[in-house]
């Protein structure tokens, strides 16, 4: 799976209330949620993001609530991948379960600037910075999580197991 897009950069400890404020949790439609993605940090974010773009954030991205509305809003906004130093654990689970690719990579977070163009090979965990002509290697994704990605998320994984057993 190869992804190419422009970088939107965020700091550390970006919590789920910032990704999608609780006042929108009475909605579950992905497109509507996407309109409010990151809105308290940047009210124009949803308008500016182009399909394929990439979020690069510091440590503990997605901390706080278990709301799947957060990765749903990110994915529906057109973001193709999130790269961070680390992810909060429920966000990490949710992203794999619903098929939003995420990578942990200190090197990329330290070197990438907003607006850079990245080309990312999710499977290999290789991040190419086209703008700066640099290459970074992300933490390898555990085999089980690879399996979830290959399958297209947890529900598809379950479906296959239910039909084959």
């Amino acid at each position, binding site marked *: 799976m190869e992804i190419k897009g422009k970088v939107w950069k965020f700091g550390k*400890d970006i919590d789920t*209330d910032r990704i999608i404020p609780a006042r929108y949790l*009475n909605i579950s439609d992905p497109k509507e949620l996407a309109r409010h993605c990151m809105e308290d940090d940047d009210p124009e974010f949803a308008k500016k993001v182009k399909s394929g773009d990439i979020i690069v954030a510091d440590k503990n991205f997605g901390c706080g609530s*278990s709301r*799947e509305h957060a990765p749903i809003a990110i994915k529906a906004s057109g973001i193709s991948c999130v790269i961070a130093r680390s992810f909060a654990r*429920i966000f990490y689970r*949710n992203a794999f379960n619903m098929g939003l690719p995420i990578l942990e990579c200190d090197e990329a977070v330290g070197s990438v600037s907003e607006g850079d163009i990245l080309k990312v090979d999710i499977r290999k965990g290789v991040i190419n910075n086209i703008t700066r002509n640099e290459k970074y290697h992300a933490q390898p994704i555990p085999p089980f999580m690879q399996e979830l990605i290959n399958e297209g998320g947890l*529900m598809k994984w379950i479906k296959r197991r239910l039909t084959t057993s």
Partner: protein
Amino acid sequence: MPMTITEKILAKHAGLREVHPGQFINARVDIALGNDITAPIAIKEFRNLGAKKVFNRNRVVLVPDHFTPNKDIKSAEQCKIIRNFAREQKLTHYYDGGDVGVEHALLPEKGVVVPGDLVIGADSHTCTYGAMGAFSTGVGSTDLAAVMITGELWFRVPESMKFVLKGRLNKWVYGKDLILRIIGDIGVDGALYKAMEFCGPTINKLSMDSRFSLCNMAVEAGGKNGIISPDNTTEAYIAKRAERRYKVYKSDRDAVYGDVREYDCSEIKPQVAFPHLPENTRNITDVGNIPIDQVVIGSCTNGRMEDMRVSARILRGKKVPSHMRLIIIPATPLIYKQSMKEGLFDIFLGAGAIISPPTCGPCLGGHMGILAEGERALATTNRNFVGRMGHPKSEVYLANPAVAAATAVKGRIAHPDEVVGKR
């Protein structure tokens, strides 16, 4: 191989003799919980997969507590989805109307969760039940859907961190202060992916309500679960409530921990977490003069009986300033009733408080007490993120109910001793 309590419960539910940190397992789930925010998405996935019946109607628990009583049309629609689903699936544990309470206060109180259980909830504070010696962790809606269908879920066995708490608690110091102190120490990702095991003489003497507050905020340090081995206090609490037989697990003496930390609790003062992260903690004595517009006492962290009684002790015979909005939210109908019976409502109303029906309400900026631009709240809740209780430019400070009640009386963050005097 020696194991921690967390590893033992996970191994048992995965049908394995032993497990080790980092291992991926598929485990049987005893209780799966969803609320009015997370369950609608799970129900959609359940239907998308063509599932017809939940794996066990006694083990799927739905509690519409966040935006209820329905605050607007959109939330009413979300609640309707889960109400219809609960009825269709004949769920034993569906709580609505006058039976609803804040989920993490309600489930232990009803004996739905018991020691030794493996519990998942599509709500991050599901880690609360660790206080009863269960492995309990927050997950997302897709996970909930998976469990509703299969009764199982994938887990990565966490490494355990041990927190040994010693020393006598100071006056006005509770479970809330212990966990705030720990989060202030290790940071909001200090226990990322890890099990936080609490033990030691201070824990042994701690009330159940304080234990729930303590484990409730494990997720605020990034923890996967918080856990306390059951003892006599646990047994006394659960014996009269448990609706199933339960099993008590304890960590082996030589179990392996990634980190062991010791705290002398006699040095811990009431804590206040400053905006906008729970790790920004200070001693109440180092807070300075911070005027407050609204005080909220409630939530899955501090809306239990102990919290109501502590608040009443401070508020008795006092009156909050006219510009102060003091909102008190007993977390469950039983706590509501008991508070009324003990005459606490007279004290609260006499002090000028607003008593809300059990709901999450303002804790997540939902309803029943939203902040305007520039306003400041002090709350007994668990998160003070940007915009958590309303306007993105409002502020939330976190503290225990004694500090909260004293703050309401003074109109600024205050030490309980300032209100009731040293005794």
